[in-house]
């Protein structure tokens, strides 16, 4: 994939979340959360179950409308222009739902069509993406017969079909074997190196330490710490990111 060039707006944050708040009934899911996901690096979003990670990610993708605050993707207000914002985003959700009766190639082509890409462009783009994700040999296979790792790579191909400059991964290596997880992590690093803004939500601490340039820790709907993994460990005086995480959130509850 060719290096991506961004319009220099004098502001490196490509995904910007500002003071969002979301309440479901009596439960405050997210309270005054602000974060930036800058270009060219992988930002990790950590937190125990119920910390508000999924709500924050859904607010970024426009699937959840915050009660207060706002989200911008490449300067586009998600609440006001959700279609424009989604066109700038590539998202790999935690649940990889596939259509059992469509082939791998048809999945990618379907996503390309939904992104509004021209028919002439779709063929070439599909072929190159399948090759990039190691799915060429599986192109004609129906998705119902794919392994979890193959499904995850297919989801990655679908999320990248329109060459988005902002990517969001929700638990990207969940359920993958060691080799598949390595491949996915390598691809995420490559995307960041190509200049993309990458947000990764994960529970796996060694993975976060290995993959992320910056880490944002959420607990009980709020951001409780942020910085590089080294900075976090240094701040709380712990030798591992996992220990630092536990110290920051104040308990071991919710750790997987």
């Amino acid at each position: 994939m060719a290096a991506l060039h961004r319009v220099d707006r004098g502001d490196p944050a490509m995904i910007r979340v500002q003071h969002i708040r979301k309440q479901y009934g009596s439960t405050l899911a997210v309270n005054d959360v602000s974060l930036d996901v800058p270009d060219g690096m992988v930002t990790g979003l950590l937190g125990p179950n119920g910390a508000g990670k999924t709500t924050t990610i859904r607010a970024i993708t426009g699937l959840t409308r915050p009660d207060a605050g706002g989200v911008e993707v490449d300067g586009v207000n998600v609440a006001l222009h959700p279609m424009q914002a989604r066109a700038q985003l590539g998202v790999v959700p935690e649940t990889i739902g596939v259509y059992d009766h469509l082939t791998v190639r048809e999945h990618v082509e379907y996503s390309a069509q939904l992104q509004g890409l021209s028919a002439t462009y779709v063929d070439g783009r599909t072929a190159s993406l399948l090759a990039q994700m190691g799915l060429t040999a599986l192109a004609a296979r129906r998705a119902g017969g794919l392994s979890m790792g193959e499904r995850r790579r297919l989801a990655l191909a679908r999320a990248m079909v329109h060459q988005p400059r902002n990517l969001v991964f929700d638990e990207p290596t969940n359920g993958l074997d060691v080799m598949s997880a390595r491949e996915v992590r390598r691809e995420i690093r490559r995307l960041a190196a190509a200049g993309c803004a990458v947000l990764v939500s994960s529970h796996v601490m060694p993975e976060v330490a290995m993959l992320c340039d910056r880490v944002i820790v959420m607990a009980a709907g709020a951001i409780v710490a942020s910085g590089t993994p080294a900075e976090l460990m240094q701040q709380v005086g712990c030798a591992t990111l996992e220990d630092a995480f536990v110290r920051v959130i104040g308990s071991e509850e919710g750790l997987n």
Partner: protein
Amino acid sequence: MMFLAIARKELREAVRDRRSLMSGLLYGLWGPLVMGLALIAMAGHQGDVGSVTVQAEGASQAPGLVAFLASRNVTVAEATGDLAAAVRDRRVPVGLIVRADYPGKFTTSRPAPVELLHDTTWTESARRSAHLRGVLTDYGKVVADTRLVLRGVAPTAVAPLRVLDRDFATPGDRAARMLATLPIFVLLAAFIGGLGVAADAAAGERERGSLESLLLHPVGRLSIVGGKWLTVSLVSVATVTLALLTSVAVMQHPRVKNIDLPIGLSPIDTGHVLLLLVPLAVFAAAVQLSIAFQARTYKEAQTKLSTLIFAPMLPGFLFAFGSIEPAHWMTFTPMMGQHVMLTALVRGEAPTVMNLGVLSAITLAAGAAAWLTAAHQLGRESVLRRANG
């Protein structure tokens, strides 16, 4: 034109999955075949019984009765074995027992006992016994009249009333009663055709977890539902068309053609029915999607949509049991209007272009409202919750 991409994908999946598609289409095929068989059976069963042979015990004691029966095309054959058991076991539809005291009582002008053996729960038995009872009654009247004349009494003196029974029903008329169920049957085709595909396109998408991925694309909710609506509508219309074409083929069968039906499903009749049902199928597809998007699983959607099938049957039942009488406003109400017009069509009354156009427009508008409702469902955050989430 994102909705076309969605429609293509949904159609491709439906064709490859087959189960959802075939369950609907098979209704369009089997329904008319079953109806054709019922038409033939009904026309045949309720027609003239023609020559009848009846097994009897003790018939030799009543030669006059046997001769009278023969004159009415009822041949009496002496039973072999236990006649009552034969009727009870449904080996023989009707039996006649002339009791041993018949001759003595007959000759002394007392009521002479004959037993008519039959089974009212067996259509053939009921039909033949009714015929035989009529002939026996006639014989009794002939004998009674003769006895009165011999005693110098005019038979008319003891018959103040003479009821003449004139049944104008032809076999075709009787079959037409069966054909009166046609409106309910074809209305059902519009609702059953796309049921499985709608359940899969909406609730199936939620169950698989693919709905979130779909919503992450820059495609409006109206387009998403629009694409699915187009697919379900196509399948529903295909089912209705298949049901009508099969009905036309059934009507062309020689045994059905022999029945003098008031409607033959001519090309014009077929066109009218199609014009009535296409908007209804489109309406049904939108309603089914709006309901299916509220279900988290395919099975839950199927259960909810199955209850919806009773909706098009409701007007028919209400009319049949006299709960309500067809009124003018019903002509312009989706489902009721189609039922009223189809019933009129079966009676041989073609709908006016005006009525047809207004009803179709109202039905399509109601479908559009259901489409907006389904799109609204997609905007709710709860739609992202899965069966286990």
